[in-house]
């Protein structure tokens, strides 16, 4: 009889626990995990390197978006699962200008203030089968002109005037992606470990200053 009572109590508490999770389940159902193509979603400058650590640290307050001057910060409003309401940047729509405001305003450790040249949002990759100057000796140079970091990030390859080549200093802000006039978007931002630079080696972080 006593055991029966005990089991009943356990059952009641389990039921209570399950019931108390219903609101969270509802909220979760409303924002299913749907991940779009990864290259369209790049992290914010100064973000924690591990996306899961970023999702744990971010409280979804939206302050980074509210201070962003070019309004490039977007949020996973309806999809996302665990990282619902966390921010991302889609450089093809609007690119980061490396102004530091989001890093400064973030209340948590999701975004921390770091020097601009230490930012790691990825690295730009140029598809040489789609870029005008690389394909047919066209005249463009928009990406080199817009780059906020100058020659250390993207420059014309020697003796190949107007043919842009990504350098080690690229932090992946995506200005070149946004400005590129070619509709097929020959420039993408990829994770730094997957990127190559002008010398066709795996890129490493430059920390020499």
């Amino acid at each position: 009889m006593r055991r029966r009572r005990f089991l009943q109590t356990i059952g009641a508490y389990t039921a209570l626990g399950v019931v108390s999770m219903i609101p969270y389940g509802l909220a979760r159902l409303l924002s299913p995990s749907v991940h779009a193509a990864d290259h369209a979603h790049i992290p914010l400058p100064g973000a924690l390197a591990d996306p899961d650590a970023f999702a744990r640290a971010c409280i979804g307050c939206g302050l980074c978006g509210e201070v962003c001057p070019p309004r490039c910060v977007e949020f996973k409003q309806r999809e996302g699962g665990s990282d619902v309401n966390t921010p991302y940047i889609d450089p093809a729509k609007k690119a980061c200008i490396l102004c530091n405001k989001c890093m400064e305003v973030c209340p948590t450790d999701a975004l921390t203030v770091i020097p601009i040249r230490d930012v790691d949002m990825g690295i730009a990759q140029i598809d040489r089968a789609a870029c005008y100057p690389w394909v047919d000796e066209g005249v463009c140079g928009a990406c080199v002109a817009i780059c906020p970091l100058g020659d250390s990030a993207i420059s014309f390859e020697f003796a190949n005037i107007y043919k842009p080549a990504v350098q080690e200093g690229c932090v992946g802000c995506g200005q070149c992606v946004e400005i590129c006039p070619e509709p097929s978007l020959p420039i993408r931002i990829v994770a730094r470990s997957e990127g190559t630079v002008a010398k066709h080696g795996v890129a490493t972080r430059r920390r020499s200053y």
Partner: protein
Amino acid sequence: MKKRVDSPSALRHLNKLRWVVLTLIFLMLILLPFIHLYQTYVAAHAYDLLLPHEKTIYDVMEWFTAPFVNDPETDLDAIKGTTWSGTFFGLQLSDPLAVVSQVAASFFLYWPFILTGLIPVVVTMLLGRVFCGWICPATFIYELNDTLAAWMRRAGVPLGDKVYDKRIKYLILLAGLVLSMLLGSVMTAAIYPPAIIGRELYYAIAQGAFGSGAVFFILTIIFDLLVARRGFCRYLCPGGALYSLLGRYRVLRIQRVVEDCNDCKKCNVVCEFGLDPLQDGFGQECNNCTACIAVCPTDALVFKVQTHDQAFQGPGHLGHAYRNQQVEEKSGG
């Protein structure tokens, strides 16, 4: 001796002040995204390229903010964010629930963030659950919703008024923290109405569309309207649970003056949180919203500085029950 009703105390105006504060904060949450839009237009230095409706936003916001700032691009950053987390003239403030859930989710104490929750925690420990009654942007909508429900009831529409156990919300808070740990994200943000309202207003105005949180919030409004009066705040809100725990030994309390009470029970009817002021039953749930003070016809409810509620003081001295009691005692003794 009947107390004169024509000299009401100033405390009863606090409820109007509360409504002014709630309205201001809600309007602020609508205004801030527009200010952000204006800032981005200023930063782009391209007024001529704006669309007509964007030009309207630019002009209105310029007219609105020009008297206060020199450089809208940076000066308007003084007030940013929502009640979930924001900056207010350099002071960073965060909801204690945000702090607790973030620590639970990340297993890491990031002190600059934890300290942003310090002022709200201290205020809550002194004044109780004031956030819920005086600041929360969801309260603004829920109380209007409650008024709508009252009108509908008067018009004869049958609406539910179920009463559940108020301790459910502590369980929800606990479940939220456990889920935050297990799933590695701040789960309470997904179901906490003030956080939802703050960011959904921002999404709708600055990002073009509501997110999924808006659907959840509408569900809570329907729950409040059809199932239980103020049901989400009373029984389900994880933030309310945390504030109730923090405000358990609050210093400023609304208390009943038994000599002035006439047992009219208006306070019990008006109480949004379903408390029992008539029998001195305030407890940790009271959010000092002063609605009962405003409605009391004999000014029998006052603020007192004490850390515990009074025990039940018996029927009010101006009511029938007390008079009958006195008569019985006289005839008996």
